[in-house]
């Protein structure tokens, strides 16, 4: 589903590589944690998958396509197969919960009746039934993240990228979000989650890819956050 082949990425502002000769393969339906300290290259990894950045060297394959050969106007189609969730939720403050989720479908030209059908379904899935007409600022952090996940998942993407989705949440709320991501993973969606929350990684026992200064230090199935623990 996602394959990095000797990928190196430099940012123009830094002499050090954000990712250095990274080779990783993530299969369809996997749940993968990418761990490491801030600046280790986790976010760069996710941005490269979305083609928000281009690698300096190496090849990146996503959903069977090599990204360097994907023309500019096809990038939106790539992104429709990838849902994205962030630490800061990235909701539209002047739209209701329902409108926030529907927005993701409207802007890719889905017909009205489809939107009317699938938005309640996905809100039900993330546990927000009954809160469709709330505004984001009326919701708790965990609920806001559920809206963001609903928006990322409403188009049934093959891949869900989550960049520190529990970074702004307290531990008990985080557990609920992880259950939700796990449920989404069970529908066959590949989930890639960047985090430095060791409790979550240790409790989930999923594949762990550890990055350090842009290098892959460890790639372990059913792993924990760090060796020392």
């Amino acid at each position, binding site marked *: 589903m996602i394959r990095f082949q000797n990928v190196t990425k430099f940012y123009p502002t830094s002499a050090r590589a954000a990712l250095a000769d990274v080779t990783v393969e993530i299969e369809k339906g996997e749940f993968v944690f990418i761990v490491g300290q801030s600046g280790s290259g986790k976010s760069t990894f996710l941005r490269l998958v979305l083609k928000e950045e281009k690698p300096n060297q190496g090849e990146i394959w996503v959903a069977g396509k090599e990204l360097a050969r994907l023309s500019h*106007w096809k*990038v939106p189609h790539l992104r*429709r197969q990838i849902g994205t969730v962030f630490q800061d939720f*990235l909701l539209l403050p002047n739209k209701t919960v329902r409108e926030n989720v529907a927005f993701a479908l*409207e802007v890719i030209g889905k017909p009205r009746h489809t939107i009317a059908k699938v938005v309640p379904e996905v809100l039900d899935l993330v546990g927000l039934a009954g809160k469709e007409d709330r505004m984001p600022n009326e919701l708790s952090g965990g609920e806001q993240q559920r809206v963001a996940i609903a928006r990322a998942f409403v188009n049934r993407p093959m891949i869900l990228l989550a960049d520190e989705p529990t970074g702004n949440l307290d531990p008990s709320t985080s557990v609920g979000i992880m259950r939700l991501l796990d449920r989404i993973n069970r529908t066959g969606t590949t989930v890639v989650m960047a985090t430095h929350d060791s409790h979550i990684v240790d409790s989930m026992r999923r594949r762990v890819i550890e990055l350090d200064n842009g290098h892959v230090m460890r790639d372990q199935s059913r792993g924990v956050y760090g060796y020392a623990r």
Partner: protein
Amino acid sequence: MRLRFILSETWLGLIRNVSMLAALVLTVVISLGMLGSALLASKQISTMKDFWFDKIQVSVFLTKDVTQPQRDAIASELNHLPQVKRVYYESQSQACARFRKQFQDVKSLVDNTPCSALPESYRVQLKDPQKYLVVSSAVQNMPGVDEVQGRSKALERFFRLLNKGQAAGLFAAGVALLAAVLLILNTVRMSAMSRRRETRIMRLVGASDLYIQGPFVLEGAVAGLIGGIGASLGVVLVKVLLIDGGVHAMFGNVVNYVGWNDVLSIVPILLVVGVLLAGLTSLLTLQRYLRV
């Protein structure tokens, strides 16, 4: 569906960003109003030039012993000059009649000037009186020509002044246009910043450029159109209040004034510049947020 989404987003954007829209519209009104006024001033000067130009002729006086073939040669030479608009022939008796009419109050002068003392002449009207020297050098040395009289030195200076005034007007229009570009650019950039989150989400969920840019560019174009209409009203006000009601009322018909057709020729410029300027800057500004 596609069109409906873009139109409804445009409409929502217009309502939601009323203050931003008002800023953009006012920016366009003020800067294009300046542009329109400068253009109007420049047109006023060119109207004044035309007014004076029409009153100016070059006179080619003929010698007393001029022969018919010489007259024909001079006439055809004048008619062939590309700078010449029209050539009138004034015979001795016509010259005499005009002289008598012109000086009818000075009886002694009329009485003491026999018609035979007045030369026959060609009166030449030029397309551009500033090209007077071309005419004079073309016929000055032809047989039968006595003297070529053009414009006086004072008139020369007056025209130079008008030319400078017109150049200054066009320069002011250029500066106004530059100011318009910069002001609109700034306002649009602010508007683009204010919807950065929206743009980011659209990019992430895979919206095409049309969906992301469409509403924003349309919004800019609508603001530009409203601003252009406002600026046009401003120019109309300048014409009604300042020119018709002010200068014209004060100085009367000393010269011609810019007419409504001049105003009408400026209005489409303002509308098109308003729409294109605001629309294009919107497009280019947002493009920076779309770079993949």
